[in-house]
C-alpha cells in the first residue's frame, strides 16, 4: 500500500526537480532570445504535452533503451541501464512534465517589464545579479505554479513510465500503475483507496497552484 505512494512521491519530486531546473533555464532563455527556428524549438519543448505518452515512451526507448542511441553508450561505458528502473521512471516523468514548467516560466519571465532589468543594469548589476535579484523574484509565482502542475502531472504519469520502467511491484510500480493493476486483478477496495490518495494530493496541488497565480501583483 505505502510502497507505491513513497515510490510515486520520490519519482515525482525528483522529476519535478529536473524538469524545474531545465524548464526554468529554457523558459528564461526563450523569453529573452529571438532566433531563427525559435517557434520550432518552442513547439518541440511543448511536444511532450500533446504526444500520446506511449509514443513518448517509445521515443525514450529508442533513445535510452539498452540498444538505444544513447543507451548503448551508457551501458558500454558506465554500465548504466535505465530500463525497468525507478530512475527510468524519473526520466519519463520529468520529460512529460517539462512543458508545464517551461510554459509557466516563460510566460512569467515575459511578464516581467524589461525596464526593471535595465534599471538594475544602470545600478551596476551584472546579468547574473539581474536574474537572481530582479527577474527570478518577479517571476517566482508563475514558476511556482508551473512547478506545482508539473508535480501533479509527474505523480499521475502512466503511459511513458509503463513503457520505460515497467510494472515491477516495490521497484517501479507507482500509484497510477498500481491502480491499473488493482482494477485488472479485481481488487476494487485497493483501487478505490489508491484513487482517493491520488485525487486528494492532486486537488491540493491544484488549489495551491491557483492561489499562487491569483496572488500575483
Amino acid at each position, binding site marked *: 500500500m505505502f510502497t507505491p505512494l513513497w515510490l510515486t512521491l520520490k519519482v515525482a519530486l525528483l522529476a519535478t526537480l529536473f524538469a524545474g531546473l531545465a524548464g526554468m533555464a529554457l523558459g528564461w532563455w526563450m523569453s529573452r532570445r529571438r532566433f531563427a527556428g525559435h517557434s520550432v524549438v518552442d513547439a518541440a519543448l511543448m511536444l511532450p504535452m500533446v504526444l500520446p505518452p506511449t509514443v513518448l515512451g517509445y521515443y525514450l526507448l529508442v533513445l535510452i533503451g539498452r540498444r538505444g542511441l544513447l543507451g548503448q553508450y551508457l551501458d558500454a561505458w558506465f554500465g548504466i541501464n535505465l530500463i525497468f528502473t525507478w530512475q527510468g521512471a524519473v526520466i519519463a516523468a520529468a520529460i512529460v512534465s517539462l512543458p508545464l514548467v517551461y510554459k509557466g516560466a516563460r510566460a512569467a519571465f515575459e511578464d516581467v517589464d524589461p525596464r526593471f532589468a535595465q534599471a538594475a*543594469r*544602470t*545600478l551596476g*548589476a*551584472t546579468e547574473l545579479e539581474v536574474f*537572481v535579484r530582479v527577474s527570478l523574484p518577479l517571476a517566482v509565482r508563475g514558476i511556482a505554479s508551473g512547478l506545482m502542475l508539473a508535480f501533479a502531472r509527474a505523480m499521475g504519469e502512466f503511459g511513458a513510465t509503463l513503457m520505460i520502467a515497467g510494472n515491477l511491484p516495490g521497484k517501479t510500480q507507482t500509484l497510477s500503475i498500481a491502480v491499473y493493476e488493482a482494477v485488472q486483478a479485481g481488487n476494487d477496495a485497493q483501487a478505490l483507496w489508491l484513487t482517493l490518495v491520488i485525487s486528494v494530493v492532486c486537488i491540493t496541488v491544484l488549489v495551491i497552484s491557483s492561489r499562487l497565480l491569483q496572488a500575483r501583483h
Partner: protein
Amino acid sequence: MVSSAQPILDVRLQMRLQAPGRAFDLDVAFSSHADRTALLGPSGAGKSLTLAALAGLERPHAGHIRIAGRCLLDTGAGVDLPARDRRIGLVFQDYALFPHLSVQQNIRFGLQGLGRRALPQELEHADALMMQFGLGALAASLPRHLSGGQRQRVALARALAVRPTLLLLDEPFSALDSGLRQRLREDMAALLRDLPVPLVIVSHDEQDVAALAQTIVRIDGGRVI
C-alpha cells in the same frame, strides 16, 4: 562643475531601430558645458532613445560618448562600456521601481550584489538621501503604496545612491497630473539645484525645461535641430 574648456557632455550617436514596416534613424551630435542640459522635442523625436544610448541600454552602431572627459563609448576605438560600468544614473519615465522591494531596499539596490556587501558609509549615504527626500517614514513601504511624487523621489534617490557621474531624467513629470505638476516641478527644481551631479533631462515640455535646464538641445525626427 568642470571649469576647464572640456565639455561635461560630448555626444555623437548614430543608430537605426528597425521594426516590421518601419525604421527609425537617430543621428545626433551635441556637447554641453552646462551642469543642466535638456533634450527637448516632441514625442517620437528620439530623445528617450538618446538617453538609453547614453546609459548603455541601447547600442549605437557609430559614435562616441564622453562625460567630463571620461570616454564611455567610442566605436572608432572599440570602446563600449556596459551599462553597469558607466556610472550613469537613469530615472525612468515611469520610475521602474522594483515592485518586490521596499523603498529602502530599492534605494540600496545598487550598493550590494552577489558576493558584494555595501560599506557602512554607503548605506549611511543611501539612508541620508532617503531622509533628505522625505521618504524616511516610508522606508518599509512597497512602491505600489506610494504616490506618484513619492515614487519619483525614490527613483531619484536610488539613482543617486550609487554616486553616478551623470544623472538622466526621462520625462520626469509626464506620469503626474497637471495640477501636481507645477508644484512638483518647483520641488524637483529645488532638489536638483543642490545635487552635486550634472544632469540631462528629457522633456517635450518647454516649461519643464525652462525650470530645470541651462542648455537646451532641440531634437526632432532623430536629428538635432
